[in-house]
């Protein structure tokens, strides 16, 4: 099951130091292979926790930028720089959200100069800047949709020169809408069945459980 040994190699640089990597692997796995796993902060290693933020430059001169080390495959001549983003305190959501309340929680909302840096920085392809403009207009349902796959890596916040905090506002909107929704009830139950399901006899418990799976009742 291990990768074949004939995989071609490339040279990359991470934090200024060169290493050899196998074509097809990610920056993160290349670092692991040479014992440099702590060079880039890591969490899930699967593209959803946002820990391993980096900036990347390519040898062929095409635009580089921010990305996740666990998802970006290596390529010849690539230069990588760790770009960890600090976790900072957040503002609590409200249960009837409007733009003024969002502005109160995150006063830099209106400082967006439409430079698009946040959208370019987002490793999840979220239209971050457009969504900030939607926040200003109070189009919260669409904002919630935009931020569905946000991994809170913080890159949009880190690259913003005007201290706008898009991902924090995104989750503020999502949570506020969630709080405003109707919440679930208590579900149906048939407590008379517990006697059989919790019988002292393990065989009987299993048999009763099989019956209930079939019909919802004991046969």
């Amino acid at each position, binding site marked *: *099951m*291990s*990768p*074949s040994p004939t995989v071609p190699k490339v040279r990359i640089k991470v934090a200024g130091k060169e290493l050899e990597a196998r074509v*097809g*692997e990610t920056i993160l796995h290349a670092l*692991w*292979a040479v014992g440099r*796993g*702590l060079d880039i902060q*890591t*969490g*899930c*290693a*699967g*593209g*959803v*926790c946002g*820990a391993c933020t980096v900036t990347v430059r390519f040898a062929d001169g095409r635009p580089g930028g921010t990305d996740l080390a666990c*998802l970006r*495959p290596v390529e010849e001549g690539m230069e990588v720089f760790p770009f960890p983003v600090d*976790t*900072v305190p*957040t*503002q*609590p*959501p409200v249960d009837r959200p409007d733009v003024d309340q969002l502005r109160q929680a995150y006063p830099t909302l209106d400082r967006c100069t439409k430079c698009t840096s946040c959208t370019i920085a987002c490793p*999840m392809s979220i239209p971050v800047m457009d969504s900030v403009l939607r926040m200003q207009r109070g189009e919260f349902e669409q904002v919630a949709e935009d931020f569905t*796959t946000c*991994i*809170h890596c913080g890159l949009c916040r880190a690259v913003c020169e005007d201290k706008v905090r898009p991902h924090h506002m995104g*989750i503020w909107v*999502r*949570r*506020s*809408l*969630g*709080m405003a*929704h*109707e*919440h*679930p009830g*208590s*579900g*149906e*139950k*048939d*407590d008379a069945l*517990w006697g059989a*399901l*919790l019988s002292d006899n393990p065989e009987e*418990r*299993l048999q*009763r*459980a*099989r019956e*209930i*799976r*079939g019909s*919802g009742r004991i046969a």
Partner: protein
Amino acid sequence: MEWASDSLKKVEATREARREQKLPPISEEASDSLLKQFHPDQTGQERAVRIGVQSGKLHGLPQLMELLEADSPVPQGFQPVPEIETDVLIVGGGGAGVAAALVLENSGLKVHLATKLRIGDANTVMAEGGIQAALGEGDSIQRHFADAYVGGHGNNHPELLKILVEEGPDAVGWLSRLGALFDRNEDGSFRLRPGGGTSAPRVLACRDVTGLEIMRVLKDALLSGNTHLLEHHSAVELCDDGAGQVTGAVLWHTDSRRLIPVAARAVLLATGGSGQLRLQSFPTSNHLGATGDGLVLAYRQRCRLLHLDSFQYHPSGASFPEALAGQLVTESIRSTGAHLLNAQGERFINEMSFRDVVAAAIIREVSEGRGVTTPSGRQGVWLDTPLIDRLHGKGSLARQFPGLIHRFRRYQIDPEHHPVLVYPTLHYQNGGVAIDSEGKTDRPGLWAAGEVTGGLHGTNRLMGNSLLDIIVFGRRAAESILQSLPTRSATTLSALNRFREERSSLAGVPTEASPRLFPEVSKIRLELEPSVPGNSPVGDAPSSGGGGFEPPDPFFKG
């Protein structure tokens, strides 16, 4: 995927004919025999542990038993003079730990949450498919129990399972009031999907990023509260008072490589699972830190462990591209109608069978020569993702599974048009630390919640019951701590010392210390900063009065 074009043509050729095809549920006999022959738990390699409270009685794979028999990384004679004194120390920053921390907020207790990585860098955030709660019409709490009990082969602890299912609706309500957004139907009701082995639709989801949604809501709530956060602090040992009560932990700080003793009145172990041990060379869907630390720490404190011979190999880990090997491809794609196909384009199992059965069926196909081999030498079967749009309309796959699409498109694979190749991946630690209905372990002062515990799921867990577990039992453990917080007692390493004594009489014990903290493949190792006095053996221990009680500015909050 030129290398697979022959097989892909067969998949496409059978697609239309398969649309309406119904496979019967697998019979109990067939399923038993499949598991016996092909499930990775049944390879017969287990052995008994040779040390500790369950010596000769607890069985598991040798790799796991070695971890339990290994020495601690804490140097001989290390004095656990507390640098931090707190009321509650939560170890683990995933869903269970953070849910507990939120319950303890505003209790007036000082709470520290220590985590190896950052808050939220955990298996919770990687969970995709959903969370179970019996909220549907025609469903019931008892049906939920029955499904989980049969799926767990009747090895579930009935009392724990009853609590899980009874508290399901309330746990989802709690998340909903915190602002978690679950998918809804047009009429505003929750959209419920089936999962493998559910007898009614019961799985709530946020697209295919349910764990991410739950974790980011919990994390956002935690970050606006007053819990003291100790990120990049791994627990490497538990402290006790010499009379059987757990009283703190020794943490290892990744950046300074120092050991930091913490004194606490209660410790909650919420350290998660162990997929990164990559048992039997399986790839894993787990995060970097899932190395079974909690099992090791609890066992040294003479807590019992359950079902360590049972692991969940999730049927659908990615097999291609190599960079995604082992990563989860959510079960809810099968719930939504996608078929599993062998190299010939044939279905071979009812896709909604229990997870262990589906995993065994995939392994059977591959081991009998009906799998597909990738250029890297991995094996797999097809998950026919393009079928989703055929069944539910164009754009359905992308709308419901944005995480999947995003991940594969980076590698020029479009699951809307091409099936994805999958093979079982080490996903979940079914067993773990024994707890009672309050989350108490065998030792006073020590609670446990979430994947680190055992008994609840028996020997096979159903989709959506783990996200529920962490919320129900994370909250429950915190409530129990509030009810029965022990008085402060001495912080010593006497359990460790006794363990070491017992170990010294054992031949052929492993030399590498545990907990390992990081996977073998990452080559990251616990190292101690030699120039720091506290890291040296006794004699060099700090002579100061010790017990500096204010935390050294943990994180960004004082």
